[in-house]
C-alpha cells in the first residue's frame, strides 16, 4: 500500500476527518449539480413534462389522449400518484414538480449508488468518464422514474460486489424484494429485471440468480399490487412493449430512444482500459466472465443494438458500476483511506465532475429557453387553440409534451401522446404515413378530412409558408408552429379570421 508520510506529522490529527470530508464533498456535489442545472432554467424535453402535468391535472389518460385498444391502465400509475401527493401537499405547479423530479431523482439515484461504495470518489470518476463518452448527465437529469430502476439495479450489483466472497444468503431476498417492488411501483417495466437475473446466471452466480428471481417475482407482485391493479398493470406492460416495437415495420419511424445504438465503440475501449488497469495494477477483482456487473453491461450493449434503452437504462449503468468498482479497488491500492492525497483526489474529481456535468455545451441545459408554448392566455392564439371537446392533431410528440405541460387542465385531447402504440389503429396509420414520407403535408390529409370545427392540426414549420393543406385555414401561432383549423364562415363586412403569414 502506498502512503504519504512526508512531512505531514503536524497534520496527523486532521487525518481522521479525511473520510468524512470526502463523503461530505461527494454528497454536497450530488446536490449542487442538479441545482446548478435547474438554475439554468433547464426543463427536460419529454416524459417528465407529461408526468408533472398528469399529476397536476389528475385526469385519466382517456380524457387527455385519443387512445386505442392497447390502453387499459396508466402505465406510470405509481409515479403519478407520488407526484400528485407532492402537488397536493406543496401546491406546486407542473414546472415546480418537474424541477423536483429532476433534482430528487438525480440525488436519490446517485446518492444510493454512492452509499454502496467504500470510496465515493470512484463514482465521481465513473460519472466523469460516462459524461464525456455518453452524455450521461443528460440521461440522469431527464426527471423520469427509470432513474430509480437504474439505481436499484446498480445497488444490487454493488451489494453483490461487496458480499461476493461470502456464501449467498437467503436474507438477500429480504432487501432485494422491496427494492424491486419500489422500482416496479414507480417505474413499471417489471419484465426487464429478467436481464439482471440473466447477468447473474451467465456469471455462474446461480444462488444469487435464484434469489434475485424470487425477489423479482415477489417484488413485481408487490409493486403491481400497490397500484391497485396488479394483474392489469403486469399484463399491460408486456402488451405495450410488444406493440411499441412491433407496430413499426422498420426502425425509421420509431421514437429515438427505442432505435438501435449502432454499438458503442467507446464501451469496448473503456472495457479494454479496465482490463489493462487490472493487469498493470494487479487488482484483486473477480474475472470478468464471473462478474454479473460485466455481464449486465454486455447484455445491455448487445441488446442496445436492437433498442437503445436496453443499453441506456440497463447496460450503461452496469458499465458505470464496473468502472466504479475497478477505480475503487485502484484508489484503495494507491491512496490510504485517511490520506491527504485522497482528499486532493476527491477535490480534483469533484471539480472536474461539476465542470463536466454542468457545462452548457451545445446549449443542452438552456435550449428549451427558446421553446414557444401554446397557451390559452396568449392573445395571439385566441380562437386558434382547440375548443371544448376538440382534438389536437399533430405528428410531433414534442408538441404534446409541451402543450400538455402548459395546459394540464385543458379540455381537449391529443391524437398523439407519449407513445404512438397507444393511438387508435387508424390514427397510427396516418401518423406512420407522415413520418414515412418525411413529413409530407399530404400525409396529414386523412386527419384534415376528419377534423371538426373544434379540432386543430398543429405542425412545426417556418414562417415563410403555411403547410400545403389549403383546405384548412392557417395561423402562424407562435414561432415555428402553424395551427390549422376548418375555415370559418366570414360574415360580410368583417375581416378574414386568419392573417396572412407574410404580414407583420
Amino acid at each position, binding site marked *: 500500500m502506498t502512503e504519504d508520510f512526508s512531512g505531514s506529522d503536524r497534520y496527523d490529527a486532521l487525518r481522521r476527518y479525511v473520510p468524512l470530508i470526502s463523503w461530505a464533498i461527494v454528497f454536497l456535489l450530488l446536490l449542487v449539480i442538479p441545482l446548478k442545472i435547474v438554475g439554468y432554467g433547464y426543463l427536460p424535453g419529454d416524459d417528465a413534462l407529461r408526468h408533472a402535468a398528469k399529476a397536476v391535472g389528475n385526469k385519466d389518460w382517456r380524457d387527455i389522449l385519443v387512445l386505442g385498444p392497447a390502453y387499459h391502465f396508466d402505465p406510470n400509475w405509481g409515479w403519478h400518484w407520488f407526484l400528485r401527493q407532492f402537488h397536493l401537499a406543496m401546491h406546486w405547479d407542473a414546472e415546480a414538480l418537474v424541477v423536483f423530479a429532476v433534482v430528487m431523482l438525480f440525488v436519490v439515484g446517485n446518492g444510493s449508488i454512492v452509499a454502496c461504495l467504500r470510496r465515493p470518489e470512484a463514482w465521481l470518476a465513473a460519472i466523469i468518464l460516462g459524461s464525456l463518452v455518453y452524455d450521461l448527465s443528460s440521461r440522469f437529469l431527464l426527471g423520469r422514474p427509470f432513474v430509480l430502476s437504474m439505481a436499484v439495479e446498480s445497488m444490487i450489483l454493488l451489494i453483490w460486489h461487496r458480499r461476493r466472497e461470502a456464501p449467498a444468503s437467503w436474507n438477500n431476498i429480504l432487501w432485494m424484494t422491496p427494492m424491486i417492488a419500489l422500482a416496479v411501483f414507480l417505474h413499471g417495466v417489471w419484465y426487464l429485471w429478467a436481464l439482471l437475473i440473466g447477468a447473474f446466471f451467465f456469471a455462474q452466480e446461480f444462488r444469487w440468480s435464484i434469489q434475485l428471481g424470487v425477489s423479482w417475482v415477489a417484488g413485481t407482485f408487490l409493486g403491481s399490487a400497490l397500484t391497485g391493479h396488479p394483474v392489469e398493470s403486469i399484463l399491460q406492460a408486456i402488451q405495450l412493449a410488444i406493440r411499441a416495437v412491433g407496430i413499426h415495420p422498420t426502425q425509421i419511424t420509431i421514437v429515438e430512444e427505442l432505435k438501435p445504438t*449502432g454499438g458503442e465503440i467507446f464501451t469496448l475501449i473503456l472495457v479494454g482500459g479496465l482490463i489493462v488497469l487490472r493487469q498493470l495494477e494487479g487488482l484483486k477483482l473477480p474475472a470478468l466472465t464471473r462478474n454479473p456487473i460485466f455481464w449486465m453491461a454486455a447484455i445491455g450493449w448487445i441488446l442496445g443494438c436492437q433498442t437503445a434503452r436496453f443499453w441506456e437504462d440497463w447496460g450503461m449503468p452496469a458499465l458505470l458500476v464496473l468502472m466504479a468498482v475497478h477505480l475503487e479497488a485502484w484508489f484503495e491500492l494507491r491512496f490510504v483511506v485517511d490520506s491527504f492525497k485522497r482528499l486532493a483526489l476527491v477535490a480534483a474529481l469533484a471539480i472536474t465532475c461539476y465542470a463536466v456535468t454542468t457545462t452548457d455545451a451545445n446549449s443542452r441545459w438552456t435550449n428549451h429557453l427558446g421553446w414557444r408554448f401554446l397557451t390559452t392566455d396568449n392573445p395571439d392564439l385566441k380562437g386558434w387553440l382547440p375548443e371544448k371537446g376538440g382534438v389536437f392533431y399533430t405528428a410531433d410528440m414534442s408538441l404534446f409534451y409541451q402543450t400538455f405541460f402548459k395546459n394540464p387542465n385543458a379540455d381537449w385531447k391529443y391524437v398523439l401522446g407519449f407513445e404512438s402504440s397507444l393511438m387508435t389503429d387508424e390514427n397510427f396509420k396516418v401518423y406512420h404515413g407522415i413520418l414515412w414520407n418525411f413529413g409530407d403535408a*399530404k400525409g396529414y390529409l386523412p386527419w384534415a378530412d376528419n377534423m371538426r370545427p373544434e379540432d386543430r392540426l398543429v405542425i412545426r414549420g417556418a414562417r415563410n409558408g403555411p403547410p*400545403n393543406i389549403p383546405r384548412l385555414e392557417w395561423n402562424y401561432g407562435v414561432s415555428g408552429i402553424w395551427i390549422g383549423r376548418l375555415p370559418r364562415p366570414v360574415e360580410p363586412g368583417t375581416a378574414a379570421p386568419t392573417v396572412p403569414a407574410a404580414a407583420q
Partner: protein
Amino acid sequence: MTEDIRNEDRFDPLRRYVPLVVWMLAALVIVFTALKIIGYGYLPYDDALIDAAKAISGKSWQDILVLGPIYAIDHHFGWHWLLVQIHAMLHCTTDGLVAFEVVTLFLVCCGLPLVWLKRPEAWLGILVFFFIWSGFLDRVVDGRPLIITMTALFAVLFLWQRSPAGPGWREGTAIFLLLVIAFFLHGVWYLWALPVAAFFLAQQYRWGLWLAAMVAVAFPVSLLMTGHPIELVSQTVRLALHVESVYVMPNTRVHEMRPTVPQFIAVLVLAGLAILRRLAKLDALPFHRSPAFWLAAMSWVLATQTGRFWIDWGLPGLMVLAATDLQLFLEKTMAVDSLKRVGLAACLSVAVYAVATDDFGGRWTHNLRTQYLTPDNPDLQGWLPEKDGIIYTTDMSVFYQTFYKNPTADWRYIVGFEPAYMAPADIDVYSKFIMSNGDPKTLTPWIERMRPEDRFITRAPRQNTPDLPKLEWNYGLSGIWIGRTPRPVAGGTVPPTVPAHSERSTNAVPAAPSAK
C-alpha cells in the same frame, strides 16, 4: 498453454468437436448476417445498382451515358460479364442481381479469412470491433467488385502470416488465381504497388519480390481475358492523366475519392495491440516487420489525399494485424479443444450478428422510402425523357436510382458514375455547379441545350420550385422536381403543368408499409 481441465471430465468426449463447432458458428453467423441485412430490403446506394442494371440492359455505356472521348471500353468489363452470365442463367431482375452482389461479396470477404485462421473466433472478434467504428461494414455490403480486391488482399496478408518464409505452391497458386480474378473483375491493378511496397518496407523481401512477380503475370492474363487488353491499358493511363485536370478542387470528386481526416481510432487500435502484446507476452513479429502494419500506415497517410486508400487498403491491413495478434492471444490462453472456446465463439457470434444487423440510423432500411422515376407511374406521364432524350442532373443518385429501375429505357444520362468520363463541356458545367454550391445560373449551358425530349431532374422540397424559369416544372415524386422545355398550349386546353402548391393527384403520398 493454459488449459481448463477442472471438473470437465464428463465433457471430455465432446472436446474433439470444439474446433468444428467453433468453425460452424463462425461460418453460420456470417451467412445469417448477410441474409438478415438483405432481408430488410436493403439496397446499396451506388455502383451495385448500376452494375446490375448494366448487366440487364445489354447496352454499352455509350448508349447509357453522354460520355467524353476519354471513355472507350467498359472499365468493369469482367464484373459486368459475370453479372450478365448470372442474369442469363437465373433470369433474375435488377433486384435479384443486386441481392446476389451484396450477399455473395459479403460472404466472400467476411467468410474467406476464416479459412486462413486457426482460431476463427479471432476473426469474429475483429469483425465486431471493426463493424462498429471503421466503416468496413458499410463497405463490405456495397455489392461492388472492389470487395474482391479486398478479399485478395486479405488472402495475401493472411497467407504471409501463415508462411512468412515464402509461399508454397498451394499458397502461390491460390494467390495467383485470386489476383487474376480481382484484376479481371475489378481492375485497379496498379494499386497493388501498395502491398508490394508494404512487404519491402517490412523487410519481407522474398514475399515482396514474389508478390510483384505475381502481379506482373496476373495483370496481362486478366487483360487478355477482357478481350481488349490494349484499349483497357490505354484508357486507364489516359484517365489517370485526365483526372488531375478534371478535379480542380477535391470537393468536385465523388465522395469516396475526397480527402479524409485519418481515423484516430486506428491509432488506438495499434496502441491496444501494443499493450496486448506486452501484457500477454505474445510472440508476435514487431510492427515494423509486418507488411500489414506498413500497408495500414501508408494508407492511413494517403487517406489525407483520397479516402479510399484507407477504407480499401489500410483497413484490411489493420484488420489482419489485429486478427493475427488476437489469434496468438487466444492460442496462448485457450486450448484448441477447450469448451470455453465454444462459449467465446457463441458470444462473439451473437455480437457480430447484433452489431451488423442493427438498423442504426435506418442504414438497412432507408432505401425503402426511396421513390423511383418509372414510366409505369401515371403521375409521371409526359415527364420522363422521350426517346433518345437526355436526363440532365447534377445529382449522381438520380442516375443510380433511375437507371436501376429503367435499365432498358431509351434515354441517356448526362452525369453517370464518374464525372471524369463526361464530355469536357459538361464537366465544366458540372464542376462550376458544385464549386458554386449549387447556383442554378451555372446550369444555363445545359438549359439552353435542352431539347423537347430532354428532362432536367433535381432534388428539392415541394415548396421550392427550382430557380430555372426557362423550364416548366412538375413535382414528380416526393423530393424530386422534373423540368422540361415549355410545351405550346393549345387554345382551350388545360396547361400541362400544375402549380406545385396545389393539392393534386400527382405526387401521391405512397403508402407506408405496415408491420407484419
